[in-house]
């Protein structure tokens, strides 16, 4: 061997000298301290953006979808792009909660609550777009299988209807998952908070949780089953979103790799969004002991993997478009890379495929500032991915006589910007009033929680790894 490497034992999940009660204090004190001034400022800005959203929606309902930049044949524009983008972001929460839980990845406990909250708010933002895009919003209930005056049912063969079921199921299950995880922590706040009103409100949320082991027994089972259910669910949601495109015959949309490719892309953007928010929050709320650089590094690895998977899918699409020798498919991929939207295409490639490759370097993976930048770049890239898929395929479809350039209007932009208001309004409320880290779960993965780490007298013995001395091989 020309080069020798040094083995570095796994770092502890919680940095610093913490015991159970200091962890409790570190996290739940945030909810009990007076509201910081900065929070009010951020909340005010979010509220203004939310107002922008409400005005845009009101005007849309008043005037109709003509206020958007849609045309024929580009009947799907920013609304579907934003929908897919937000739903995609909403995938990290359940992935971190469910899949990493099943894989027994202890590091998830530092970020799962946070990511789950993000999921719920992101899916709320996503849900708005198809709902307001239907045109006649007052009959939006036609999407559901409810008896109506036409005696007709929704079309169960349509992927758009599958979407209704998938997104609403995802929203419900994510919320339940989040809430089940919250119950023990709400009980913690209930037992610590001084204010009477707070006690009652957190008490209601905690449902009378008292840490009983007979309860934990069913609780853990329930959490495990929920994780088992949420894992295929999270795959199915973006799969069904991809079906919206892939079951059609539009060139560039009908390709079988769409389901896993969309899921990988969703996880990719979701992790990036979690990182963006987490890097800000750990700084402001002094949670660097819990959300450590090791966590950031692990998440960066997932970004690298999923980013490469997305790159792999781009390559497969491109290759098969050529290999299949279908004229329209071949054409659309050339148009994407060289046509009127080439700028969007190359932004997408640069942001999604090239930028995460930085994370091959351990130094960059552990660099918080660079991670922050890449995490934002990735989400820009993922927005453009949906833009490229939607707009390039529709604007240059089978009929060259109707080809044209699609541009959004100011209302497209304002609606999109407004959803950030909605997202951050809820997110700030979450940060202010709910424990942003799953305290009970975090305690459960601390070495002090393992009964094996105590000696006969009941004293805590810190676990140590003994690295053996390497022998020279005489060969």
């Amino acid at each position: 061997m020309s080069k020798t490497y040094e083995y570095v034992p796994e770092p502890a999940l919680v940095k610093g000298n913490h015991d159970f009660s200091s962890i409790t204090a570190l996290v739940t004190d945030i909810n009990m301290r007076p509201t910081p001034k900065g929070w009010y400022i951020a909340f005010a800005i979010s509220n203004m953006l939310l107002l922008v959203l409400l005005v845009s929606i009101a005007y849309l309902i008043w005037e109709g979808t003509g206020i958007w930049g849609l045309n024929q044949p580009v009947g799907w524009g920013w609304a579907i792009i934003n929908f897919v983008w937000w739903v995609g972001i909403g995938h990290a929460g359940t992935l971190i909660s469910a899949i990493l839980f099943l894989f027994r990845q202890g590091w998830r406990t530092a970020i799962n609550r946070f990511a789950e909250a993000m999921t719920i708010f992101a899916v709320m933002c996503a849900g708005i777009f198809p709902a307001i895009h239907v045109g006649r919003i007052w009959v939006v209930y036609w999407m559901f299988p409810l008896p109506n005056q036409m005696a007709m049912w929704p079309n169960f063969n349509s992927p758009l209807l599958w979407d209704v079921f998938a997104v609403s199921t995802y929203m419900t299950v994510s919320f339940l998952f989040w809430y089940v995880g919250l119950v023990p922590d709400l009980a913690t706040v209930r037992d610590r908070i001084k204010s009477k009103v707070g006690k009652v409100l957190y008490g209601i949320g905690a449902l009378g949780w008292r840490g009983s082991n007979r309860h934990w027994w069913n609780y853990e089972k329930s959490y495990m089953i929920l994780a088992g259910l949420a894992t295929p669910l999270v795959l199915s949601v973006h799969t069904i979103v991809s079906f919206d495109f892939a079951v059609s015959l539009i060139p560039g949309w009908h390709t079988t790799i769409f389901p896993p490719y969309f899921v990988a892309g969703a996880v990719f953007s979701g992790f990036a969004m979690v990182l963006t928010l987490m890097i800000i929050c750990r700084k402001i709320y002094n949670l660097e002991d819990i959300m450590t650089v090791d966590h950031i590094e692990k998440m960066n690895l997932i970004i690298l993997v999923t980013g490469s998977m997305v790159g792999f899918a781009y390559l497969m699409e491109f290759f098969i478009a050529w290999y299949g020798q279908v004229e329209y498919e071949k054409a659309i991929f050339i148009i994407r890379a060289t046509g009127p939207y080439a700028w969007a295409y190359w932004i997408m490639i640069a942001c999604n495929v090239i930028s995460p490759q930085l994370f091959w370097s351990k130094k960059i993976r552990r660099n918080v500032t660079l991670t922050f930048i890449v995490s934002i770049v990735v989400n820009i890239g993922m927005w453009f991915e949906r833009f490229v898929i939607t707009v390039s395929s529709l604007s240059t479809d089978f009929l060259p006589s109707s080809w044209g350039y699609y541009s959004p209007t100011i209302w497209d932009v304002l609606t999109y910007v407004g959803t950030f208001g909605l997202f951050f309004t809820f997110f700030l409320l979450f940060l202010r009033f709910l424990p942003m880290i799953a305290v009970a779960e975090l305690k459960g993965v601390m070495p002090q929680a393992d009964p094996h780490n105590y000696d006969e007298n009941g004293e805590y013995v810190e676990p140590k790894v003994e690295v053996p001395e390497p022998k020279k091989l005489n060969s």
Partner: protein
Amino acid sequence: MSTTKNNLYGILAEVRNPKELIDVAKLVDKSGYKNYDTFSPFPVHGMDKAMNLNKSKLGWIVLGHGIVGLTGAFAMIYYMMVYDYPLNISGKTLMNIPAWIPVMFELTILLSAFGAVFGMFFLNGLPKFNHPLFNSEQFKKVTDDGFFICIEAEDPQFDAEKVEKLLKNAGAQNIETIHDES
């Protein structure tokens, strides 16, 4: 609950850490007590074995819900697409089962998740906002860093003095009698 025994609910004691909690739970279980419970800020590994807990029934509840979701979804789609308002859609057969699978899947998951969450609350008897243990001031620590065990007065073997002695010998501290004040 137990008005018979002078409103006595049980005897609560605290131990220092998860290991001691397991040890004391093993001891209490071996001594033949049935109505007791341990309390901790997080689920302690190996506690189910120490307490000899029966397997959770939750899996069956979820399975039942899942089956209802799956068959219910199929029945609904069949009724709407084949029986009540048959419509030829893109030349596919009316029983277009591959296209129904996404909705069937989603509803299976949805109902199973309801089963998992509400089934868990049901098995745990939650919500229960008022509980005798909440009368104890020291019990507030249970959601922070306190590890407790409580032997209930309902236990056929219950004898306040014996229980106190048992817990004291096991090294438990802050032994407290809990009364049901409701």
